[in-house]
């Protein structure tokens, strides 16, 4: 984790040319934010290790005769936890069992591939959080974006790259509309975006399920399964480093989206207004910023970024057509990614990479060591919780309080006044 990922909310405004910025980074490092991020990951892994050990039959057996042969217990512990985490590493970064470097590095490429939708979704949700909008609708927006992208891809077959570009744009528009509806409802009627986005997740899911088994809608011709046709090759996102590695050009788009997010939020007029509304809607309104229209545009852009997740799932990740579950829980995981990244572009990017690595390694851990992949969820949530509560980590590890100026609030998407 870098300082950006770890810096608390309000103290972090992207203005690198500012003299205070450098000071801020140093203060953060000295204040232990980076250390805290690392320690939070450690806590997560330790809790994971405990769960692995406790449920491991070998350890259970050995602990039965712990007092006779404590060594056996520790050996079993080492076997189970060590084996699991070495699988995790080999599945996420580099596989030493492979003959050459290129195939050894394949897990890292897979990590990048899995991180791609998390980064895109994380950025989308983070955008909302920065405006004070709790967009829980990642699932719905992904589904709409992906379905629209897929539909355009096979309905308007154009030569490469035009088919692809058209489909990507369609996916972005789809996500934007799905998000925009929420913004519109919030702005016009005051409906809570938390509730509306959650409800839309279900509505969209069932709606797409219906379309997927309606011939002539999204269902592939000549099949009876609720599955879409596969998009033509000309609308597929090409591999980034050849067929050998799973990572696609969507990863480059994710990088571009991260840069765009940075520019938008710290360099553009619109982002300025977004941030003003997120930090203090009353003051923004008083200063003539249309809070309601910021909510609408914020949700549009948030949905647009999440729509790219759908594009990734439909045009890059799945090979054939898609079923109604193609969001694959990314809409929800992106919430934790955005939170872990503190809604900052670089933070979200790195958080996405971390989660991508945990997921990629998790598959191998499950295949090789029979450890349910759900352990990854546990580790992820613990990391996020602890990073959000630095004082708790300090207490746990007996760290001193940083000697910086008092901060008004813990990080939060919405302003929480300490007075």
């Amino acid at each position, binding site marked *: 984790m870098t300082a950006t990922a770890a810096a608390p909310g309000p103290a972090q405004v992207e203005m690198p040319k500012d003299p205070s910025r450098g000071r801020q980074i140093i203060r953060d490092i000295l204040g232990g934010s980076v250390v805290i991020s690392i320690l939070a990951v450690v806590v997560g892994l330790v809790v994971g290790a405990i*769960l692995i050990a406790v*449920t491991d039959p070998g350890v259970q057996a050995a602990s039965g005769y712990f007092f006779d042969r404590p060594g056996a217990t520790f050996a079993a512990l080492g076997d189970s936890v060590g084996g699991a985490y070495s699988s995790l590493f080999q599945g996420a970064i580099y596989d030493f069992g492979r003959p050459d470097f290129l195939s050894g590095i394949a897990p890292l490429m897979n990590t990048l591939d899995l991180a791609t939708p998390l980064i895109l979704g994380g950025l989308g949700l983070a955008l909302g959080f920065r405006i004070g909008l*709790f967009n*829980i609708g990642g699932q719905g927006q992904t589904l709409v974006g992906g379905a629209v992208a897929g539909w355009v891809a096979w309905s308007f077959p154009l030569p490469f790259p035009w088919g692809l570009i058209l489909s990507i744009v369609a996916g972005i528009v789809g996500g934007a509309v799905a998000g925009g509806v929420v913004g519109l*409802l919030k702005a*016009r*009627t*005051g*409906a*809570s975006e*938390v*509730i*509306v986005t*959650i*409800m*839309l*997740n*279900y*509505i969209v*899911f*069932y*709606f797409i*399920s*219906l379309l997927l088994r309606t011939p002539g809608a999204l269902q592939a011709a000549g099949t009876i399964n609720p599955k879409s046709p596969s998009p033509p090759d000309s609308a597929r996102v090409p591999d980034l480093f050849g067929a050998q590695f799973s990572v696609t050009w969507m990863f480059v788009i994710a990088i571009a989206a991260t840069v765009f997010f940075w520019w938008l939020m710290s360099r553009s007029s619109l982002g300025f207004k977004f941030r003003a509304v997120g930090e203090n809607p009353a003051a923004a309104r008083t200063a003539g910023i249309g809070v309601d229209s910021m909510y609408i545009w914020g949700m549009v852009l948030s949905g647009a970024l999440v729509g790219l997740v759908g594009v990734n799932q439909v045009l890059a990740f799945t090979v054939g057509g898609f079923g109604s579950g193609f969001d694959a829980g990314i809409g*929800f995981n992106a*919430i*934790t990614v955005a*939170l872990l990244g503190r809604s900052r572009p670089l933070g979200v990017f790195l958080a996405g990479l971390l989660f991508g690595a945990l997921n990629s390694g998790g598959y191998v851990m499950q295949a090789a060591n029979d450890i*349910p992949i*759900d*352990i*990854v*969820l*546990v*580790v*992820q*949530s*613990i990391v*996020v*919780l602890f990073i*959000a*509560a630095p*004082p*708790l980590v300090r207490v746990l590890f007996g760290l001193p309080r940083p000697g910086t100026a008092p901060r008004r*609030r*813990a*990080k*939060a*998407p*919405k302003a*929480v*006044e*300490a007075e």
Partner: protein
Amino acid sequence: MTTVAGIPGAVALEKLDTRSWKTPVALGVFALGAVVLFLGLPRDGQADFQFSQSGDFFSIPDLIFTATPVCIGLAFACVLLAAGSFALVWFKRLTPLWYIGIFAALFLVGFLAWAAAGLRPLPLTGLLLGSVSLSIPLVFGSLGGVIGERTGVVNVAIEGQLLGGAFTAALVSSVTGSFTAGLFAAAVAGVLIALILGVFAITYIVEQVVVGVVVNVLVLGLTNFGYSTILTVDPEHLNRSATLPALPIPLLSQIPVIGPALFDQSIIVYVAYVAVPAVWYALFRTKWGLRARSVGEHPEAADTVGINVNRTRYLNLVIAGAIVGFGGAYFTIGSVGSFSQNMTGGQGFIALAAVIFGRWDPVRAAMAALLFGFATNLQNSLGILGSPVPSEFLLMLPYLVTVFAVAGLVGRSQAPAADGKPYIK
């Protein structure tokens, strides 16, 4: 104080002419829907509403009628009522709640008749029974949510508490063979999750929604992991509990239609019947409730009269956790006896919606929960009859209703003033 200069007194301020068209527009949309469905896509045949089932105290004959004319009549009535609502707003009057209620009832009867036309009898008892069953966990979840938010803590972790309660109830009651132990364990699980929420949200002032979302992931991960590594090792003994027996209440359970649905249920359901008024009473009539609400409205003020804000919040969160966890037991030992992964499937979020829909009032929130249960069960009932509506459409119905309700009827509702705000001295 004398008032001169022609200025009227302060308390009786007059009102400005402001009209809200939300209600008439919402009614209009539904009325239009009725016209399109009932007139545009008429369905032939008889609709048969079945009131009694075998074993009732006395039996009421089925209500059988030809669907089309009745539906057309009802569509016409809906249009009239919607127009009436427009007129009321035009004349600067509010559309009363009972008016909306009548509209909803007419629309619903019409819809049921339309959907069931020419099919098998629609058993109203079953419709009601299923609605109650599906709404019970939502009732508990929303009660917990109301208590939490009334004291200023937004509890997004209801989902996790329900899931945790479901898991522990199944495990403990399978192992011990005791329902009491299972229910107790479920409540304890809810409390533990509440404490995690408390530590992070209250003590370490992490944004409450953040904690809630993450705690949900944590509980999902833990229960999935526990399911794969513990429950499935020996499901016969670790994940196969008996289910709570139905305890028919004498006489009451024999009332036609509602008796079997409401009074031939298991203990969890009766607890819900008691819990709703009890929570309402406790919140609005007791010392505990006064203090809890004061902490949720204005914690500084509560502090200055000697109420320990954070302790009050912890206490209420724990009580709420116990309620929600207990409700989670319904998923397993209250209905099917075994746990499966992620079996709450987002019900906690629906409960959260019920809290807001019910405007932070336990009784209204329970009503909202019942409405969700009803909408969900409509899908069951009509699906079984083989009605023409696609099942996915009916499945999304409760969520659509929520969006309509939140956008059209609730809108900018007033949450407790300090809801979601940590208290920092």
